[in-house]
């Protein structure tokens, strides 16, 4: 009796699995165009991940409302990479194997991008990242593009910013991963050219370090005039909150483009006067930017930030390449178009050389809970 039941169960399970796999097969030439997205939707950067996916969704909605691409609508296959390379790699494999997915918009953390880039290269699946800024991506794959500038560029601009503020002695703080190291290396190189002395180098762990007491004590002790933080919003916010308690009240803070988000203002007065840099501001009064800003505001009730704009551009660049394809849409044909595309987006010209863009960046300073342009 017992045996019979278990065989029945196994048969039912197998039948269900077979049925479900049948449902999963998507039609290739008509019906929606599937685009994969892989961003952190849980974990400590989930808020940024959601901003990015929202901006991509806005681009999708706009294109679909205008009639889609060759009469086909776009549909997102949204995955949560949890900001970990391990999940990112398995998502990449999933996208690579699913032949209905023609393009990918991916990765908040550079370390997650590195876990994916080879998978996409192998199967020839074009991917655009709005956020992975590590210099290591430059020329790494013919199927990997980014709408953000490389850290090589951001790091040296950061040193220029420190110079402009007038700091001659700077404490360099970096997040101990691909993102932080990428910027810190370029910062050091440029700082040397400019004659800025690096008084101490300290490191912290993204998503884990909440106690900056020892770092700040060392910074105060080193006699720095300013701190340059190669990190993201949460850590920098905590650093600013704590700095007065460890003798760093008069030491200024500047940071890489990871800070350039309205989320930093959750830390209130503590972040007043923080400097950063970025490629996009809603205050830019060009027509294309204002159209994006008003559409984004209408959809989500707030002004778009840097990441949202870069994500929107990444999505639009991908869709623009799809529109340019003659005949049947394939991964390879979309990629050919991306190689030569020149799409003027909300963050500037999206035109790729070795997968990289060179865009105009601006300096900003935190003033009364808003990013004002620093000139």
């Amino acid at each position: 009796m017992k045996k019979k039941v278990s065989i029945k169960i196994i048969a039912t399970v197998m039948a269900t699995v077979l049925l479900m796999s049948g449902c999963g097969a998507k039609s290739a030439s008509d019906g929606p165009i599937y685009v994969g997205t892989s961003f952190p939707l849980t974990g400590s950067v989930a808020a940024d991940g959601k901003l990015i996916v929202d901006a991509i969704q806005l681009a999708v909605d706009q294109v679909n409302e205008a009639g889609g691409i060759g009469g086909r609508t776009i549909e997102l296959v949204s995955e949560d990479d949890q900001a970990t390379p391990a999940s990112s790699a398995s998502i990449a494999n999933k996208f690579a194997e699913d032949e209905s997915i023609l393009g990918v918009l991916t990765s908040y953390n550079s370390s997650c991008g590195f876990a994916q880039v080879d998978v996409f290269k192998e199967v020839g699946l074009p991917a655009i990242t709005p956020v992975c800024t590590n210099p290591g991506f430059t020329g790494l794959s013919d199927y990997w593009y980014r709408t953000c500038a490389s850290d090589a560029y951001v790091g040296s601009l950061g040193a220029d910013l420190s110079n402009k503020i007038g700091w001659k002695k700077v404490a360099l703080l970096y997040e101990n991963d691909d993102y932080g190291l990428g910027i810190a290396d370029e910062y050091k190189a440029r700082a040397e050219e400019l004659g800025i002395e690096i008084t101490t180098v300290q490191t912290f762990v993204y998503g884990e370090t909440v106690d900056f007491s020892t770092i700040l004590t060392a910074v105060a002790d080193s006699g720095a005039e300013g701190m340059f933080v190669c990190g993201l919003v949460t850590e920098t916010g905590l650093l600013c909150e704590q700095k007065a308690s460890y003798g760093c009240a008069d030491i200024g803070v500047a940071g890489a483009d990871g800070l350039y988000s309205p989320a930093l203002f959750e830390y209130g007065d503590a972040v007043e006067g923080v400097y950063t840099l970025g490629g996009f501001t809603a205050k830019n009064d060009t027509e294309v930017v204002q159209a994006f800003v008003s559409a984004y505001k209408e959809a989500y009730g707030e002004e778009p930030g840097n990441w949202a704009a870069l994500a929107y551009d990444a999505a639009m660049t991908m869709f623009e390449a799809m529109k340019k394809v003659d005949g049947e849409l394939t991964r390879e044909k979309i990629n050919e178009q991306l190689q030569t595309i020149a799409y003027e987006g909300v963050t500037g010209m999206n035109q790729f050389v070795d997968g990289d863009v060179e865009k105009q960046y601006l300096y900003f300073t935190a003033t009364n809970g808003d990013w004002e342009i620093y000139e």
Partner: protein
Amino acid sequence: MFLQHLLNGIVIGGIYAMVALGYSMVYGVLQIVNWAHADVLMFGTFIGLILTGLGLPVWAMVIIAASFTAVLGMSVEKIAYRPIKSANRKMAVLVSALGMSTFLQNLAQLIFGSSTKPFGAIEKENYQIGTIMFSNMQVIILIITAIMLIILYIIVYKSKMGVAMRACSVSIENAKLMGINTNRIISMTFGIGAFMAGIAGVLIGTYYSAVYPTMGYLLGMKAFAAAILGGIGSISGAVAGGFVIGIIESLGAGYISSGYRDAYAFIVMIIILVIRPSGIFGAKHIDKV
């Protein structure tokens, strides 16, 4: 700079000590490691954050949040441990504890969201004596830690319940024979440990101004290392272990490298386990197999 690092270390050490007590007391009575302890702490801290948002005064917020944490700690014992501990299977209890920890963390992410929230219950003020900087938060942490440790000492060594608790830790079977309501004592042990953890959570959340669903993980691991270091099951051991871990961590990060900050606690724990497996204050006894 040495004194500054030492002060920072003592302050964080006080927090570790309060959390370590919860691990040690539960282990003392039941010989199980309550892995959900740090997640109960995290929940209590979120309650503190919400109460502060409602505009409660700080003292009321701390007491209510800690009481909530105590109730939650006792509920965890009732739901996850009591039904299976009679089966006398340590492995089942261990897995149940890990499951409870994962459950609480994910529940918190679902309810409160996963981002790090600033926690400014107490306006920060900074003072300076000579070259040492300190804040009112650090003073508050040290004072509250001292008060809590004294209260705990009185409960454990001067009260009737303390006698019963110590009896349970010697032999739960014999305690039962002597007419002690062991279930009640076990429940109280969880409650007291969680109450201390609730206070530690609110303090550290305010100190760093950061509350997030995974805040218990590293804090709990280090506090557990402190409990092991001091000799798990021993109350004075947990306190000493907490301060030792805090100070070593602070000095290590200050003088060796800040990148390995979180590793020092565990390096020390491993060394102690090799040299003196029962910990600094741990009783030497042999588990009969």
